[in-house]
């Protein structure tokens, strides 16, 4: 293997608004190995989805990527002409969104709209495209797929629609699929089915996944590495078991400790005080400092990333030095 599949370095994405410039993603760096499942967690507004969109070049003007690079198998994606990006999307990197109802075209039959995704990238006969669509739908656990090709999206349940969206992402055998909260809108029983299938898919097809979620438990049952974002920055990264058993950054620690699973039933939960900062008025230095119990004068300066083995964090006062 010659280096990681995806390397993101110093990625910065900005959106000018009437109230000022929102830097939604700030100098984000990470990598994804081939066949790996990487969890990307953070609260709303932390920049996790914008990171996903930036990788695919899906930032609408006036928003734009103002710095950094995204390299897929050595090929730079930032600054690529729109035509080349379009050729790459779906074939090299695909994306699955949170709301399957909005992803699918309501007036096209499932089989037809999925076939469009094949024809966009290669010249195949309609029959061959149809066969491949049926094959991929079976792969994601849709029973009797060949017969359901002529159904419309509204004839599918939410879980089935999300399976169709995932199947569409798989159609062109991309090297990487970015999944943006794909199970958040689904019931737990359906979520468990989809998580089981995604895990098997990643294992069997060698497709790498970036799994964007706010739910640490879901990510912990799926990913091998985790990235935690806060206010546009990656504040912690590492192998998932190590990060979840001994988080270094006080925010990551606070998130974990505030879960009901960590407390005695009926007793107060540990809570992080305050609320996430406005992206228009970020505090100077560490963005988490105003909510952090360990913050002091040093935190007025932006902490540089500390690297220890596989782990990385941005904090002046991390919890117990993580062992790698």
């Amino acid at each position: 293997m010659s280096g990681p599949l995806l390397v993101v370095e110093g990625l910065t994405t900005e959106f000018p608004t009437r109230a000022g410039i929102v830097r939604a993603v700030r100098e984000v760096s990470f990598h994804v190995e081939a066949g790996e499942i990487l969890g990307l967690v953070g609260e709303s507004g932390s920049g996790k989805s914008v990171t996903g969109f930036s990788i695919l070049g899906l930032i609408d003007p006036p928003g734009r990527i103002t710095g950094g690079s995204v390299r897929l198998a050595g090929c730079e994606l930032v600054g690529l002409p729109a035509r080349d990006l379009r050729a790459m999307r779906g074939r090299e990197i695909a994306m699955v969104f949170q709301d399957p109802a909005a992803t699918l075209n309501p007036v096209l039959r499932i089989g037809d709209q999925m076939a469009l995704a094949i024809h966009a990238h290669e010249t195949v006969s309609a029959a061959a495209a149809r066969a491949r669509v049926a094959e991929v739908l079976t792969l994601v656990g849709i029973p009797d797929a060949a017969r359901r090709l002529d159904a419309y999206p509204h004839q599918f349940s939410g879980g089935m629609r999300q399976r169709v969206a995932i199947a569409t992402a798989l159609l062109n055998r991309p090297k990487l699929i970015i999944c943006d909260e794909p199970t958040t809108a689904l019931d737990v029983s359906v979520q468990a089915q989809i998580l089981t299938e995604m895990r098997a898919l990643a294992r069997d097809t060698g497709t790498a996944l970036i799994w964007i979620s706010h739910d640490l438990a879901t990510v912990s049952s799926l990913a091998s590495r985790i990235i935690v974002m806060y206010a546009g920055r990656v504040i912690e990264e590492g192998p998932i078991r190590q990060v979840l058993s001994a988080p270094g950054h006080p925010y990551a620690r606070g998130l974990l400790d505030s879960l009901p699973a960590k407390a005695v039933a009926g007793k107060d939960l540990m809570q992080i005080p305050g609320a996430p900062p406005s992206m228009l008025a970020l505090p100077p230095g560490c963005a988490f400092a105003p909510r952090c119990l360990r913050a002091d004068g040093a935190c007025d300066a932006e902490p540089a990333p500390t690297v220890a083995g596989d782990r990385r964090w941005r904090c002046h006062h991390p919890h117990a030095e993580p062992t790698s």
Partner: protein
Amino acid sequence: MSPAIVEVRNVSRRFAPTPSIGERIAGLFGAYVENRTVHAVDRVSLDIAPGEVLGLVGESGCGKSTLGRVIAGIHPPSDGEAFIHGEPVMGGSRRRVKTTTRVQMIFQDPFGSLDPRFRIGATIAEGPIAHGLIRRAEARAEVARWLSAVGLPADAADRFPHQFSGGQRQRIAIARALAMQPDILVCDEPVASLDVSIQAQIINLFLKLRRELNLTMLFISHDLGVIRHICDRVAIMYLGRIVELGRTEDIYTRPAHHYTRALLDSVPKLVTTGDDLVSFRPISGELPSPLAPPPGCHFHLRCPAADARCRSEAPDLRDLADGRRAACHHPLIDDRT
């Protein structure tokens, strides 16, 4: 158990779309008109004791919100009745209206539940003034009292909803409900739309209010972790029926209904040790449409223990060991006898 403060007796709630004029004429001439009635809640009975927090759990479409709204007096029941302090929540016989202020509701979306053009103080004081609980002159002090109870500064009263974050708005919605001095709070997914770090703050607020005000609560959620943390007892709903009811710890450690067990097995657990990925045991199949629920036990299509009886005969909610009730022909725990 002390006498119940909330009694739900055989409540059903159906939703039927109003037939179009064409359908009505066709019906008059004896044509077949498709029945699109949804049985959102199907003959549910339960009690809530004073000071108790009862959790109501289920997947989307199971009728948990509708049951909550019947108890809160928002929807009149189609059959049966919900009582508070022995009195029906809805008075009147033909045109049914809510006749008590003893029950208040908190909704999931704090962006939709507050009037954007009302100042916070006006939002909180409106109900108590209209119902004569307080005089207009007392409103300011009263608003400040409830704002402080939910952890907001008194000057929040002069601001508008858009000036607050989601977590703060949910606090305001809670203050508005409390200002009516209810005995019962019906909370419909009150933390589902909040960020993880804010969820813990609101859960702690509920725990504090419960301790200080001795509130009785119906806490509706799909989040089994949150329910386990704050509820004394839990009711599990599936397609409009309660399938299991019991003490929280009992249900989580030893579920009686196959659906409960499958639901608990589906929840991703936070795994912090070990190299292996945990395996789920997902429920096979999908939730059937509430328009056409299967006959017999609604769960039989997905149940590993289903037999011929389950396919034809709907099980009643019956008493099992340790004060548990479950609607299952083949429960996972012993019968009482």
